[in-house]
């Protein structure tokens, strides 16, 4: 009775099993993590290639740097300008987006290996083994820090291979990795606070948004020095982990000391997260989940009502993202002539992206809307794949065992996503028109003109949505991979197709190839009608196939 030995409460015991958990996490992420790292490295390589291609001479680089530094909107969306060497111009374009992406990668990774494990009960199994209390969090952070270091190193290799100086390349890689590590620490903290992985991701995502917003304000309100080639930021940039990455100013200052900021930040937040794991029960959060309504609303127990409940947050977040992008692109529309400079390559590129016209502004909006329509098609893919999610989680079985027919259940989802597509395109056009109208004057006419242009893309997006429905009806187990693959194909055939030098016959395979380049080109109804007809027929086939097949789980 008196000789109960307390488990070792300090030292290595609390970290027992960390090495094994790290290996396990890497095994789980063996596809996901390499895809993230390679995609971000490819983004870097692609951006470098396009910067070098568009601005071959020092004069080009210099005028581009000056134009960017002079445009608050460009500063807000791209990041600060610091110097006008090829590397410095590349850094001004890529450091901020890459840091943002590294932050997102780290957030998802840390939450996946901490809170999500607890929520699903996997952590309980693991912690019942010889695993210390701090081991799960330690393992997640080791993998996150390691992933960011590898991301930095891959970037260094690519940049040096492109002929950029060693010290600047290392500074760029370190700046990006530092931002990623800072957000790994933020996610470690949010994962302690709430008992839901989704909320933990949401809180860390909000932190990412705040960090982006702070530095956008700081960058825009900065002052331009050194003959227009250097931006000295306002203070908000200095309180943002993404801002810190910019302040390293790779290929210009290479300010190594700035890297101490994310390091110190991560150490402090990480320590707080570790302290919190010591003081809470497994599976619980600091903030308990609040109780909800005991009764359903009147509309929930219907096919459309329940589908809406599953779809509404997806639509809400897409609407938010689309509105921000549209506002940004709309607001810089008036600067498009000076912003893109007189460079011939730029107008060539814009023409290939879908303009095909001499009016730079219309060509610009046609290109932007073309890319954003594919993004909205991404919404359609994500939202419609919820159907497969419901099926493989086993929830669809309970629903279809009630008096809801398969066609009604499926058409509720397809119908809501169709409405969502129209809503998002309306939003794209209206917000872009509003922002463009505010800077150029003539709000009503721009809103009407650009909303009309954005709506022209709806039939092509409906075809993508119908394809997802068909894949769900025909090959449920493969529907997710094939759907995203189809979207990637549309991107490769469409906006990138010209740059990749694909022939017109091949590019015609994409539904987006048949949309006129509005607002630059005239609208012809025939292809649009055909696209709608195809979408309706494919949707009908999808319902028939779904009606005829077995339900499958996982």
């Amino acid at each position, binding site marked *: 009775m008196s000789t109960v030995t307390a488990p070792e409460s300090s030292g290595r015991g609390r970290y027992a099993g960390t090495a094994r958990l790290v290996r396990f996490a890497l095994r789980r992420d063996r596809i996901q993590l390499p895809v993230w790292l390679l995609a971000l490295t490819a983004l870097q390589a692609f951006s470098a290639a396009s910067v070098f291609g568009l601005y071959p001479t020092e004069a080009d680089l210099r005028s581009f740097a000056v134009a960017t530094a002079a445009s608050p909107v460009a500063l807000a969306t791209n990041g600060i300008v610091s110097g006008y060497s090829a590397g410095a111009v590349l850094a001004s374009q890529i450091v901020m987006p890459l840091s943002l992406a590294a932050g997102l990668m780290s957030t998802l990774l840390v939450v996946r290996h901490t809170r999500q494990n607890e929520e699903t009960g996997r952590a309980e199994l693991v912690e019942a083994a010889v695993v210390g209390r701090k081991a799960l969090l330690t393992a997640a952070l080791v993998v996150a820090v390691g992933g960011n270091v590898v991301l930095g190193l891959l970037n260094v290799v690519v940049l040096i291979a492109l002929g950029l100086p060693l010290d600047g390349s290392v500074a760029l890689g370190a700046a990006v990795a530092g931002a990623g590590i800072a957000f790994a620490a933020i996610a470690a903290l949010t994962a302690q606070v709430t008992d839901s992985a989704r909320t933990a991701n949401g809180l860390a995502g909000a932190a990412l948004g705040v960090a982006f917003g702070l530095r956008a304000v700081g960058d825009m309100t900065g002052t331009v020095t050194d003959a227009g080639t250097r931006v000295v930021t306002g203070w908000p940039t200095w309180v943002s982990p993404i801002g810190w990455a910019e302040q390293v100013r790779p290929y210009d200052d290479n300010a190594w000391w700035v890297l101490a900021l994310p390091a110190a930040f991560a150490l402090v937040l990480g320590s707080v997260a570790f302290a919190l794991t010591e003081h809470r029960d497994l599976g619980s959060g600091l903030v308990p989940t609040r109780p909800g309504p005991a009764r*359903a609303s009147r509309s929930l127990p219907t096919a459309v009502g329940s589908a809406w409940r599953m779809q509404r947050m997806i639509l809400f977040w897409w609407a938010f993202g689309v509105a921000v992008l549209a506002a940004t692109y709309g607001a810089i529309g008036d600067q498009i002539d000076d912003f893109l400079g007189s460079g011939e390559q730029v107008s060539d590129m814009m023409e290939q992206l879908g303009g095909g016209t001499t009016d730079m502004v219309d060509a610009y909006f046609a290109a932007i809307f073309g890319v954003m329509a594919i993004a909205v098609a991404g919404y359609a893919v994500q939202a419609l794949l919820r159907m497969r999610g419901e099926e493989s989680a086993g929830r669809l079985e309970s629903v279809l065992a009630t008096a*809801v027919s398969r066609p009604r259940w499926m058409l509720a989802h397809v119908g809501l996503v169709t409405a969502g597509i129209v809503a998002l395109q309306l939003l794209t056009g209206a917000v872009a028109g509003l922002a463009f109208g505010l800077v150029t004057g003539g709000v009503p006419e721009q809103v009407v003109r650009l909303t009309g242009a954005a709506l022209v893309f709806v039939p092509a997006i409906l075809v993508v949505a119908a394809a997802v429905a068909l894949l769900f009806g025909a090959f449920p187990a493969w529907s997710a991979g094939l759907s995203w693959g189809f979207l990637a194909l549309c991107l490769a055939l469409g906006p990138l197709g010209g740059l990749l030098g694909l022939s017109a016959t091949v590019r015609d395979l994409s539904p987006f190839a048949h949309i006129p380049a509005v607002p630059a080109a005239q609208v012809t109804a025939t292809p649009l009608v055909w696209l709608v007809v195809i979408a309706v027929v494919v949707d009908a086939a999808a319902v028939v196939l779904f009606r005829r097949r077995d339900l499958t789980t996982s």
Partner: protein
Amino acid sequence: MAAISVHDLVKTFGPTRALDGLDLEVGTGEVHGFLGPNGSGKSTTIRVLLGLLRADSGEARLLDGDPWRDAVKLHQRLAYVPGDVNLWPNLTGGEAIDLLAGLRGGLDESRRAQLLERFELDPTKKARTYSKGNRQKVALVAAFASDVELYVLDEPTSGLDPLMESVFQDCVEEMSDAGKTVLLSSHILAEVEALCDRVSIIREGRTVETGTLAELRHLTRTSIIAETQRPVTGLEAVQGVHDVRVDGLRTWCEVDTSAIDAVMRHLLSFRITSLTSTPPTLEELFLRHYGDELAREGENHRRAESGTRAR
């Protein structure tokens, strides 16, 4: 009219024959036990009956309709509780109950409130915070609060504690008293023994035994332990007696139900001082059909325990 009538049902998944000529007959107003080990085809049968899977061949009728073609019409008249209840993580338990029952065609408000109380379920909690047992309760409340003719319950009590198990049994009995039909797939033999009028035992996609509990008991043996004043001899010679073991004044044997009278007469001549007779349990019926090895193990186990279970 039979509530469920399945004949020679076949369902294959690739090379696996999940159902291999299954028969099942459930009368209206009957509580029917559906027994079988994991992977024997119970859930597959139920999914075919619910129109979630399409049978390859054979005949299946449910409430006088075709489970595949008339799914929606039939589902208004039945409630289903799966063995593994998956709920929407961001809905509360109360919302999930209203959703499932509402999609079926509505629920009885007073029964809903009463069931929540009896199952001690907090309907304001988000489904992701529920334990397995609580998720199961959500599906049970949604089913029993619906006024339907047929309840299809697929291992509905996995994850419930003994207290809740007894609440569940009360609910089934109430449904049965109200003339409803219940198809209860289960592992828990005590539950089936307590609730079911008839049972079907399936193995590897085939029905191996079906009938009332009384009928099935004819198929098994009663075990008898007797203490006598003189050592028993000659018991082996009695027709229908098996596994006789005599140790001094104690005698163990297994007796076909038809031979009980003869055995008693024989034992009387040795002057009985104590007698324990254990009727066959469903467990034994069950074990008889699932591998000889398993059966032997169960037999030994039962011998060791039979003294404490004597009635």
